């Protein structure tokens, strides 16, 4: 279908720099998740890609062609708006049919495809309703159906599932992934749900303050975040501040943590460790030689059904450790415990 290339795009509104020098390559047929805090420029980036407004500098190409050179209606882009942008004067059916109707699709085919799309978003039978007669989540699904029904070559989804309950969301995720794979639509979607980003996409990008902080496969991003922000925004992370000394991280109390590779730099450093990588071990337990060991005091245990979170304290750092319910030990607040994890799971990050 078409790849999307964003190169060195900057965009400002007055004095405010909404995007600065963003370069991303969206692979043909790929599923790319854009993550970032509110106001980081995600919607702005999608709008530039769709060509609703043009960047101040830089260039966007879709399938090799510059966005500006093709009129909006010829670009064949399906955009789902964060505020849905449903046509209030049209029924659900007409909303979804709009993209097909303007392409002079035969009536029978319109009927079939709209029916199919509405079924996919579980809204069969709502054809005749007007948008104002729908719930928020239903409106969101109409917007989704409307964006995918005409099989665009690029699909831009701005928080497509944010208003749905968990069951519906999981269902929609599966469907979205299926269509995307079957039709091979290059999909870029914005989400605040990190789990959604990690499970659905084959590439993830993290935006902050209009800059692309890091991108990569979900695994790369999760296992090797480059910044403390990326580590905490995408999943949970324990951050250890210390001083790099002899390739290791020396904490304030003298504990030394080894990292995957010996630290090359010296001076103040931060390392991140995912909570589920840390185990609470018996004092007598035999540990492999590349383990990091830390003493901490348990402050609180949070029960979450299939898993448990332990909130601990080491000096003035608070720590969080996840354990499967099956493996969980019965610990009391105030108890001193021994934590251990593999040195390869200690990731140096930029603060």
């Amino acid at each position, binding site marked *: 279908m078409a790849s999307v290339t964003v190169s060195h795009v900057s965009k400002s509104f007055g004095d405010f720099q909404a995007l600065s020098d963003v370069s991303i390559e969206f692979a043909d047929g790929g599923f790319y998740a854009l993550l970032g805090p509110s106001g980081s420029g995600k919607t702005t980036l999608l709008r530039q890609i769709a060509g609703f407004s043009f960047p101040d500098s830089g260039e966007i190409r879709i399938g090799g062609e510059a966005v500006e050179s093709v009129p909006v*209606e010829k*670009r064949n882009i399906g955009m789902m708006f964060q505020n849905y942008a449903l046509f209030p*004067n049209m029924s659900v059916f007409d909303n979804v049919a*709009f993209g097909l109707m303007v392409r002079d699709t035969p009536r029978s085919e319109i009927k079939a495809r709209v029916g199919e799309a509405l079924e996919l978003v579980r809204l069969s039978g709502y054809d005749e309703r007007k948008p104002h007669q729908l719930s928020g989540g239903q409106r969101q699904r109409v917007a989704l159906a409307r964006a995918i029904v*005409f099989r665009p070559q690029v699909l831009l989804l701005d928080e497509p599932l944010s208003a749905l309950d968990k069951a519906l969301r999981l269902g929609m995720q599966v469907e979205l992934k299926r269509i995307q794979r079957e039709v091979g639509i290059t999909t870029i979607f914005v989400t605040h749900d990190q789990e959604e980003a990690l499970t659905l996409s084959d590439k993830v990008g993290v935006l902050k303050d209009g800059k692309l902080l890091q991108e990569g496969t979900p695994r790369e991003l999760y296992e090797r975040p480059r910044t403390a922000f990326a580590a905490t925004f995408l999943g949970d992370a324990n951050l250890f501040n210390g001083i790099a000394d002899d390739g290791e991280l020396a904490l304030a109390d003298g504990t030394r943590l080894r990292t995957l590779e010996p630290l090359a730099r010296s001076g103040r450093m931060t390392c991140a460790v995912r909570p589920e990588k840390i185990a609470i071990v018996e004092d007598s337990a035999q540990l492999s030689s590349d383990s990091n060991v830390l003493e901490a005091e348990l402050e609180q245990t949070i029960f979450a059904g299939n898993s448990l979170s332990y909130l601990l304290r080491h000096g003035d750092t608070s720590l969080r450790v996840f354990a499967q319910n099956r493996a969980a030990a019965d610990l009391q607040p105030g108890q001193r415990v021994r934590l251990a994890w593999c040195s390869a799971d200690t990731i140096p990050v930029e603060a």
Partner: protein
Amino acid sequence: MAVSDTTTAPIRRHRPSNARSILGLTGPAYLWLVITILLPLAAMFYFSFLSDVPLPGRDWQVTLSNYTAFFQQDFYRTLMLRSLRLGFEVALWCFVIGFPCAYVLAKTIKGRWREALFLMVIIPFWSNALIRVFSWTMVLRGNGILERFLDWLIPGFGSLNLMFTYEAVVIGLVHSYLPYMILTCYISLSTIDDDLIDAARSMGASRLTVLRRIILPLSMPGIVAGAVLIFVPVIGSFMEPRILGGREGTFLGTVIEDQFTSVFNWPLGAALSFILLACVMVIFAVFQPILRRAS
């Protein structure tokens, strides 16, 4: 039970006071309307059934002749049709000119320029109506500003003979009433979310399709409101037809005005006014389904 009683009771007690507050808020306005409009109108309605102005020394009785006159003489019916046609045409031209203008104001221009252009739309409103109309006579009359300009543009252009024609009346009225259409259209256009237009365009709709399927339907309430606001006063207008239309400027409005100012036949003038009013109501009743669907 006791708990639910205490929670529902205040709500129930609340309702009558709600009705009272509606009455309190709207009451003064209605009272004002009754005193200033309905009472004089009722007096006029009474006049319309008299044979002469009820003044001392005049001989008058109750009669239907003022109304039957309208139906017996073709003259009045022709005038009525002429006035209705004028109303339709002026409203139509106001739409044709005003809608694009409102669209540009609402959707294309941002910031201070919008305010400046808005002011230019409003300013004619502030000037005296008589002055506005007379300044059109300067423009339209033979060898007036318009003809001289055209002559300068295309030498040997000749004469337009616009002054004292039906067209001159339309031009003057369109100019007077255009702001209504621009304002009502502007209001309904500015409530249309720009994302709707972007969404439609991205789905492959041409500009024309977006206009036809999204913008026009969504701004219909404003268009209808503007058209009604223009249509009603235009069919009863007398100043513009008189000044710009000359002999061609005879409409129902001017005839009614004559009855009150020169012929001094108030009963006939009143009867013609009420026939006009009835006509407007019939038109609105007939178009009611369309108007309701539009808004």
